[in-house]
């Protein structure tokens, strides 16, 4: 797997991963993080995450590299779970550290917004009566596009 990237069927030990990022680099004044977790929604009983092994890790690795370079991060991690998860379980952990807070906070927003539309994961909702695939949300596409435009502007 690319550095800082993990995709696992096993539960994500978010607290442990975050502990490993804090107090690590003397020049880091800021560590920001985001945890996405399974939300009770309608008749959802469990969520199942499918992915495309290999391609997923490469896509996450590329997003991580972009974030590190754009915000001069000291550290960045993405840990995404796949398989079946119950309500309240962690789906994804994103964290970044940097000298100053704005870089860490923006990088975390960027990573979670972009990974939703740029890494080959698919969510399937299991209910008591069957299952259905989650449709992409326009708001997610817009959030991802925002960062795409931001980066295109800077590179121009």
């Amino acid at each position, binding site marked *: 797997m690319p550095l800082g990237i993990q995709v696992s069927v096993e539960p994500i030990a978010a607290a442990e991963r975050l502990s490993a990022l804090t107090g690590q680099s003397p020049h880091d004044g800021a560590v920001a993080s985001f945890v*996405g977790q399974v939300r009770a929604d309608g008749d959802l009983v469990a969520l199942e*995450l*499918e*992915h*495309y092994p*290999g*391609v997923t890790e*490469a*896509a996450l690795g590329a997003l991580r590299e972009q974030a590190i370079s754009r915000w001069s991060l000291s550290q960045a991690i993405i840990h*995404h779970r796949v398989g079946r998860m119950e309500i309240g379980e962690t*789906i*994804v952990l994103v964290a970044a550290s940097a000298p100053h807070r704005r870089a860490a906070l923006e990088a975390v927003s960027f990573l*979670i917004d972009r*990974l*939703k*539309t*740029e*890494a*080959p*994961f*698919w*969510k*399937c909702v299991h209910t008591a009566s069957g299952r259905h*695939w*989650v*449709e*992409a949300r326009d708001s*997610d*596409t817009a959030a991802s596009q925002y960062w795409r435009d931001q980066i295109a502007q800077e590179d121009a």
Partner: protein
Amino acid sequence: MQIHIRYMAALRDRLGDGETAHDLPADITDSEALIAHLTRSDAEAAALAAPEIRLIRNDRIVTRPSALADGDRLAFCPPFTGG
């Protein structure tokens, strides 16, 4: 040329599981021509033409239209919904 095709997630439910090999006529050289070809034998395959359907070619995400080469492994993907 021969192309190996898979459908991911919701597309798999509609179009079938597993990787299938397709022998293609010589005039099919890119992804969009391939989609038109597939639709001829399976009307459901027209769903692949939707612009939000994404393509993974030989384990890399590529933009459409994508050129095709003999032996390619193609995966048709519904929009990603991770995170």
